[in-house]
């Protein structure tokens, strides 16, 4: 595109004198090797994330067909039973691996490829330190490998999208801020272009906010190298977690990808962004608003209603900046729509932005309490996030890779036709994923709340509402497979392109004048008032300065000021929202009869966390008639004050367990864990038979109890050496005897299963107990 002939002169008129003479000319070379590395691993981890997603999707349908027998007596699906009984492969352990791989391995590396490519070019500067670039690259890959090893082993904090244990959390902070952040900000400091393009603003917001979210949500007391307890409990932990969880969506999956959009879309379309003004509104309103939205994940839970309403209001407001940004992206193609027919890069971008707009319309809608009442805990949320993750993050990444591959490998793309195939397979895959899952979500939500004419639940048996979803789950498997196949085509295409690369990459030497150190001079305003009042004159000058927008021009050219105000925006919102919840006691009224878990129950709770039970079972009964009818008395904030971390969950693939205690016998639980289909024929739960064989580490209990005591749980004399194990053994003996007496196997007192049963039998029973006569650990073991 040719600029107007007088473009330079017009621009120069508005440049202050101090900037008109450029600094000395400097030469430099962009570091594209690091971009090639990040792009390569983006594809690799993308394939892994999609494959694990396909496996967990299969795990939800396999149990319903394993027992299928043909007329000739064959069981064609029996070979898949390892997906339901190998402890390292259960849904509860693999689902976090899938989400972490998709968000932080695929999405993360895609962000880094985009940032390293565009930042250098927008700053007209090589990345500040090649060493930091490489430390960042290898450090991040190490984190991913550690995640892939620890999560299937059941080493998890159970906080969604932040499951990794504390040593890996420390590593993340070092790699993210120490290596990535330092390198990025120093590159900004040494840039040769005064104005920071809007993409860089989004990167700044990403780096500072993710640091803040990660550090505060991950605060925990370590027990060992592989185990820690969140310093927050119950309602506060839930609030912290979803403040983090929602803003991980905002500042990991949205802002950096918007930066990517604002940089790569204009390049691919060869058009400047539709409206740079709109991008400014987009940025600030997004940064100011997103940070508040987290509580909409906790509607009708034990979270105080004001927090939930606040989250809803800000979520609804988010619709405006999100669509402003989406429209800004789509209209960038004005006059270039014909290019869409034969450019796969633009195809991916346009569909990606369309999914962004769909998701950001749907998100505010789902945050409205009445809609959320139906959608929460159902597959509706799963469909929503996949529209965003596959459509927006996936397609924007694919578009970027098809744009970058020929440029980075300095040769033509191996096959445009394969890229077209990828586009159509991906699009079809997303649709076949989300449409049936929307139907599944709404179906199950309606079934949970359906009453018959006698006033009883129409579907009292939970598993009935699960069975109804199976056809939709099978279609999802097909959709996911198509999406995975598309990504394999991408991998093949990029590998073949790479094979065509020149023997030595050309490294064009760039030249640009150094930035002069002078700042932009402030315009001088004179008071327009005639009144004889100094205060009035000063006020008028100030108003003119604010209205001139000069201050924002300064920010746009001064990274530290820009970063400072971004931090102020996200931190002040967080503080204003979180402090009242943490500091005001009336938000979490205490219940006298709620006591700490016994050491054995605590051990059971740790097994519950380790197995990832929260991935399928909630522990939060909402004050809704259909729920209290199905599960019992609704959950109170005061019931969770000793829950480090909280286990409310976000999805009910199985029933809620908040009032599970005392509902069934110990033997029932034992048999159910051994083989869920023995107890509930249609159950899709994996088998946990390994818990019957493995022995419980009684000696390690003291450390766990002590860690809880450190964060304020009144454990009394249970912290004394040996006392926790003594109490736990006494309670375990009672449960083991009860199981043996009921006709079950004998000698289970030393096994993990007993601890887990003890925990389940305690759940939700405290509010119906009399308050203890003295403060401290109840010495009487739970039934």
């Amino acid at each position, binding site marked *: 595109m040719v600029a107007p002939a007088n473009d330079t002169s017009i621009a120069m*008129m508005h440049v202050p004198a101090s900037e008109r003479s450029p600094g000395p000319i400097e030469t430099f070379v962009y570091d594209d090797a690091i971009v090639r590395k990040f792009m390569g691993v983006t594809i690799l981890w993308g394939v892994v994330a999609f494959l694990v997603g396909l496996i967990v999707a299969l795990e939800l349908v396999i149990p319903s067909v394993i027992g299928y027998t043909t007329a000739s007596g064959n069981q064609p699906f029996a070979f898949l039973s390892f997906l339901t009984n190998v402890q390292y492969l259960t849904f509860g352990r693999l689902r976090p691996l899938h989400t972490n791989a998709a968000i932080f391995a695929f999405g993360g590396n895609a962000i880094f490829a985009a940032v390293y490519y565009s930042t250098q070019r927008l700053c007209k500067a090589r990345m500040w330190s090649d060493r930091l670039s490489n430390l960042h690259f290898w450090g991040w890959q190490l984190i991913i490998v550690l995640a892939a090893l620890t999560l299937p082993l059941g080493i998890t904090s159970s906080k969604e999208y932040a499951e990794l244990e504390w040593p890996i959390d420390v590593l993340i902070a070092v790699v993210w801020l120490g290596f990535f952040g330092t390198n990025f900000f120093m590159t900004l400091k040494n840039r040769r272009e005064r104005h920071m393009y809007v993409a860089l603003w989004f990167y700044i917001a990403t780096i500072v906010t993710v640091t803040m979210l990660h550090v505060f949500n991950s605060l925990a007391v370590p027990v060992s190298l592989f185990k820690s307890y969140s310093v927050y409990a119950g309602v506060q932990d839930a609030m912290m977690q979803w403040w983090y969880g929602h803003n991980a969506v905002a500042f990991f999956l949205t802002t950096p990808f918007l930066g990517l959009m604002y940089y790569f879309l204009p390049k691919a379309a060869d058009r400047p962004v539709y409206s740079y003004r709109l991008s400014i509104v987009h940025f600030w309103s997004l940064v100011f608003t997103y940070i508040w939205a987290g509580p909409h994940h906790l509607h009708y839970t034990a979270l105080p209603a004001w927090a939930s309403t606040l989250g809803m209001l800000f979520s609804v407001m988010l619709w405006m900046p999100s669509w402003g940004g989406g429209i800004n992206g789509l209209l960038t193609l004005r006059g270039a729509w014909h290019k869409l027919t034969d450019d796969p890069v633009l195809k991916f971008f346009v569909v990606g932005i369309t999914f962004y707009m769909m998701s950001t319309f749907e998100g505010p809608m789902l945050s409205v309490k009445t809609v959320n009442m139906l959608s929460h805990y159902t597959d509706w949320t799963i469909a929503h996030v996949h529209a965003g993750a596959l459509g927006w993050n996936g397609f924007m990444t694919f578009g970027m890779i098809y744009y970058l591959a020929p440029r980075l490998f300095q040769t033509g793309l191996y096959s445009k036709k394969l890229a077209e195939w990828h586009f159509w397979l991906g699009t079809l895959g997303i649709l076949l994923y989300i449409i049936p899952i929307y139907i599944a979500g709404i179906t199950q939500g309606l079934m949970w709340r359906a009453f018959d004419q006698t006033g009883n639940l129409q579907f009292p048996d939970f598993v009935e509402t699960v069975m109804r979803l199976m056809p939709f789950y099978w279609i999802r498997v097909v959709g996911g497979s198509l999406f995975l196949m598309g990504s394999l085509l991408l991998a093949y295409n990029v590998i073949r392109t790479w094979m065509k690369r020149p023997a030595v990459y050309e490294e064009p030497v760039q030249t640009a004048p150094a930035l002069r150190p002078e700042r932009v001079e402030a315009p001088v305003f004179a008071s327009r008032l005639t009144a004889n009042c100094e205060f009035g004159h000063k006020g008028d000058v100030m108003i003119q300065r604010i209205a001139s927008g000069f201050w924002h021009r300064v920010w746009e050219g001064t990274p530290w000021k820009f970063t400072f105000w971004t931090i102020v925006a996200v931190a002040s919102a967080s503080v*204003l929202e979180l402090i009242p919840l943490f500091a005001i006691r009336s938000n979490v009224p205490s219940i006298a009869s709620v006591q700490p878990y016994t050491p054995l129950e605590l051990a059971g709770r740790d097994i519950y966390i380790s197995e990832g039970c929260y991935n399928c079972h909630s522990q939060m009964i909402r004050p809704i008639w259909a729920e209290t009818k199905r599960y019992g008395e609704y959950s109170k904030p005061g019931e969770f004050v000793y829950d480090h971390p909280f286990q409310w969950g976000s999805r009910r693939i199985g029933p809620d367990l908040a009032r599970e205690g005392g509902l069934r016998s110990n033997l029932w639980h034992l048999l159910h864990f051994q083989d869920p289909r023995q107890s509930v024929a249609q159950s899709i739960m994996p088998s946990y038979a390994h818990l019957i064989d493995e022995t419980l580490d009684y000696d390690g209990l003291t450390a766990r109890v002590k860690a809880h005591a450190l964060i304020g749980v009144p454990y009394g004399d249970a912290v004394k050496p040996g006392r926790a194990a003594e109490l736990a053994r006494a309670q375990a003996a009672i449960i083991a005897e009860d199981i043996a007496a009921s006709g079950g196997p004998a000698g289970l007192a030393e096994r993990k299963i007993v601890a887990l049963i003890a925990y389940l039998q305690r759940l939700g029973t405290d509010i119906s107990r009399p308050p203890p006569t003295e403060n401290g650990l109840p010495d009487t073991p739970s039934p």
Partner: protein
Amino acid sequence: MRLSDIMSAMGLAIYPTIALFIFLAVFIGVLIRIGRRGDNDALTRAGRLPLVDDAPPRGVGDRVHRTEIHR
């Protein structure tokens, strides 16, 4: 007396509501900033930055577009 007793007595419950209005005001402030006509040229130039970065100008100052160099 614990910290939370003091905090509870401070009447912080109104904070989120106040913040809501502060944030709306900031939003309006940003609208005012971008609504000004004077910055047209600077903003147009800023919006074109991604299109000029691959082959930077050769020693004629950092405010000249690549397209102009090749014109």
